[in-house]
């Protein structure tokens, strides 16, 4: 699969790398497939499965470990998210223009990234330990959850791995010249396959696991992150809602013999309508 990544830890210039068929598929096509799955899957789940859209908190069963592990993981992963955004979105030329030297930038990114990454890792290890050893929590763990944990930990470990390797590597891959341009190019629909092909197997594995994690995201409990309740900061405390305005189940076809009785819509056939 990685046949087209001939150089492992050396850092060739992107122009010097051959682009193979696999490169085109993985870095040119796959991102769009993943995007389609994330967007389509999220819309589909939001329409189909609002009821299953929940954190499925297990705090009721156990809160001693959770109290430490869960904030550690969640705040850690939020920091990691911010780190990724900064690293991937902001071009090197911008930080150079701001007078931030390459060395200082890397020290900062490494420091914050490692702390956040290890916090996240320790958090999730504690959470998985809790999940496995607390009877009721383990019983409430679905196959879907287990698969999700594998992908999440894999993405986390590969990410931490490339970060640590870059510390000791004498000729590190500069992700700001390989991964980041590729990431930015995805969004303008002109994927820079060559840049990613030059990034080396570490970053490539991490990117693959990352994409896999995003692809399963809408179909796992991770969806709760998409409805992070930021609007709580702005909404009024007391919510009045009319019984009338509630869109119960929308237009639901009703089986023959189960038409509602006594309503004005009865004569109009087999569709429950909210029109008045």
């Amino acid at each position: 699969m990685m046949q087209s990544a001939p150089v492992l830890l050396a850092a060739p210039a992107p122009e010097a790398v051959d682009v193979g068929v696999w490169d085109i598929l993985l870095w040119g096509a796959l991102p769009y497939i993943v995007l389609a799955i994330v967007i389509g899957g999220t819309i589909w789940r939001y329409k189909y499965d609002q009821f299953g859209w929940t954190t499925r908190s297990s705090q009721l069963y156990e809160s001693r470990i959770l109290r430490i592990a869960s904030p550690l993981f969640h705040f850690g992963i939020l920091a990691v998210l911010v780190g990724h955004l900064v690293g991937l979105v902001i071009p090197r030329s911008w930080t150079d223009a701001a007078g931030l030297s390459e060395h200082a930038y890397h020290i900062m990114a490494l420091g914050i990234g490692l702390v956040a990454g290890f916090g996240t890792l320790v958090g999730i290890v504690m959470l998985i330990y809790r999940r496995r050893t607390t009877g009721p929590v383990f019983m409430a763990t679905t196959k879907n959850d287990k698969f999700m944990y594998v992908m999440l930990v894999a993405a986390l470990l590969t990410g931490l791995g490339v970060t640590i390797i870059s510390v000791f590597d004498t000729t590190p891959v500069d992700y700001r010249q390989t991964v980041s341009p590729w990431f930015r190019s995805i969004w303008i629909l002109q994927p820079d396959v060559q840049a990613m092909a030059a990034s080396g197997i570490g970053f490539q594995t991490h990117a693959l696991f990352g994409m896999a994690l995003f692809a399963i995201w809408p179909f796992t409990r991770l969806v709760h992150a998409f409805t992070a309740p930021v609007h709580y900061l702005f909404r009024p405390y007391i919510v009045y809602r009319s019984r009338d305005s509630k869109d119960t189940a929308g237009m639901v076809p009703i089986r023959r013999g189960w038409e509602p009785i006594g309503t004005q819509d009865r004569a109009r056939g087999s569709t429950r309508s909210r029109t008045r």
Partner: protein
Amino acid sequence: MRVMAQVAMVMALDKCIGCHTCSVTCKQAWTNRAGTEYVWFNNVETRPGQGYPRRYEDQEKWKGGWELNRRGNLKLKSGGRLQKLFGIFASPVQPELDDYYEPWTYDYENLLHAPAGDDFPVARPKSLITGDDMKIEWSANWDDNLGGAPEMGHLDPIVEKVRKESEDKIKFEFEQTFAFYLPRICEHCLNPSCMASCPSGAIYKRSEDGIVLVDQDRCRGWRQCITGCPYKKMYYNHKSGKAEKCTFCYPRIEVGIPTVCAETCVGRLRYIGLFLYDADRVTEAAATPDERDLYEAHLDILLDPHDPEVLAAAREDGIAEDWLDAAQRSPVYKLAKELRVALPLHPEYRTMPMVWYVPPLSPVVDLLKDQGHDGEDADNLFGAIESLRIPVEYLAELFTAGDTEIITLVLRRLAAMRSYMRDIALDDEPDESIAEAVGMTGSQIREMYRLMAIAKYDERYVIPTAHIEDAHNLEEIGCSLDVDGGPGMGGMGQTGVFGEASGTPMPVAVENFNALQARQQGGDPTGNEKLAGRVNLLNWDGRGAPQGLFPPKDHEEGHSR
């Protein structure tokens, strides 16, 4: 003035015999599902007692309800918006299962199938959470009838408080104590702190009837409402990952019939009717500086349905004529505001609760009788209410934020009714001075007696139906059966592609239908499959002979024995 209507309840505590029928029928109707084993939308507590969950009234610990900040504005006791969001990953003060209890069933299977031996077979308790054997140590009403009160009575947060403030001590020795029952449902507050705590905004108050509901589609399981509710009447369904609460049986209310708990109440102590209230002044009333004035402030926003000005405003706000008529006949308005004998539970939580209580006179009467006095003599009763400080202070902590004057007046009114009506029952001339002594007239006392002693079904429950022009929007009408099985109990476990709790929610009626069927034909809840498919006679509705009513004939079973 913005007039809104609220379906509300009053419970007359003197009539509660603590039979738990309300709790059981409520559970059968609403929470007889996996994930809600420990959930009691309705529970009955013996007071003094710890309540359910244990010591829920200790708000220093549980942080429920509202408090005033330094500027005198309302603020959630559990913290501001930002603070709540930062605590979202591990809710800091959420009760755990131990604070409720670990639900269980019994291994009845063993009674039937234990091999012959020297020991008598027993049905061991099995946890409904883990499925393992367990030791039962607590339940929803473990301290029922003051059970264990000599050892544990002091754990009641109100006992603690009264002990601190009173020279006398609440005693738990037999014949020196007092007890009464307190049935509790969700208060369907005007200023609900559960709603204010919900990060998703999934909890809402219906503008037509004031019933507070959780939108099961929008709830994301952040569980802040459980901390927010000072009455701890928000529950977390640990299977679906959603919050659930008392629904005030809205499908029944919408068609004009009382809630299940009220309908099945043996003592007929529950009254359901309308309050009209001024929605514009709720926040202002809830922010009344002195918590002892909250009761009056609350009464003040409950509007007089006979006042032409109120009626005009109500019509302008779109309240229908039949609802106004129902508001005028409302038994809860009569008890709360005209007769002033019903009081809100814990007004100091500042949530403006809408399930009110007529406090019990029985602790006073019982103590009088035990001491050999005439418990229906007005002077004896009035004197006892004055001198029996402990029950009065305890009741004051429950219903009037500690103001004993209000509770004394209410108890005196109840005592006056006893004495006044005794004269009538004995064919004596009624003594009008008894009525005057409590600021009432004889006809008011008779009216109160009528309402509290002999009111029939249609006087106790004055519930206008939801409007027919709205009928096709009612959540329960035309419940679609287009999803077979579905989530909830009927389909828990065999649901959507994302495992349990996923998929579209099932209308309540369908869910109950499935649940009953599953229970009738289901096996042992601990997962023992031997009895699967057999009808549980305890749940059999008595109609016909469904499959599984009788055990299979021997040859069908394959000569297992």
